[in-house]
């Protein structure tokens, strides 16, 4: 019973394994731990859904590259001038 309680109560370890599973392969032991834990823990099941979604959104945010950050035109002009200067040296 005590051993089982160590699994069912340990959300800290379960969430670590959830993160690990998103990136790497779990060992058999870890898989068993996680499956037993999630069976009884709704909060960690919710965590698992949300964290997976966050990964998806982060990836989408960066790969869509629709970020609105731009350099200002003066900086760009100076930069190109600097490049031309270097090119003329050679």
């Amino acid at each position, binding site marked *: 019973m005590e051993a089982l*309680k*160590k699994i069912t*109560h*340990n*959300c*800290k*370890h379960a*969430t*670590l394994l959830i*993160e*690990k599973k998103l*990136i*790497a392969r779990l060992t058999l032991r870890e898989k068993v731990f996680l499956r037993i834990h999630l069976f009884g823990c709704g*909060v*960690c099941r*919710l*965590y698992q*859904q*949300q*964290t997976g*979604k*966050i*990964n*998806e*959104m*982060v*990836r*989408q*945010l*960066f*790969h869509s*590259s629709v*970020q609105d*950050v*731009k*350099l200002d035109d003066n*900086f*760009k*002009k100076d*930069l*190109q001038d*600097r*490049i*031309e200067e*270097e*090119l003329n040296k050679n």
Partner: protein
Amino acid sequence: MTAETNKLDPHQWVQAHADYLYSYARARINDEEQARDLVQETFLAALEKSKSFEGRSSERTWLTAILRNKIIDIYRKKSSKLVATDVLQAEEEQADFFNPEDGHWNSQRAPQPFGIDDYDPLAGKEFNQILMKCMQKLPALWMSVFTMKHIDEETTDVICAELKLTSSNFWVIIHRTKLNLRACLQKNWI
């Protein structure tokens, strides 16, 4: 048939790639000025080694690789200073999320359903801003690990080697980053 080789055209670099490189850097470095400097350094370094460009990749890919190496240098400098304190801080904060005795969620920190559960990524520009803000609150080292993993999709071995992390440090950081990020999103979701 000869393969088409790409050529460099430095006269067009700024116009063609500066904004792209800048946004690449800004996504990974939370400092406008440093990001600007990096773009400049990237072009200058590229000029210096333009002879080594073999035309096998596109000009943009080649420039981005140079920038990326510069960013990793910065991460590395930061991380050698930060590993000890950052990880310590992470472990202390862990007490906030979980009961130190048995590791159970502390009830006030336990995840709750919020807008993310039925969120449509295509609809939400506002959400992206919250996400960016929450990411930028992360400690520098966590941000480095997170972006290398999730944006650049580097392998865990590469990240640990580049940032000189042990594998257990790596997992602590990944875990902590997501706990914080998720909590920040839940708190700031409109």
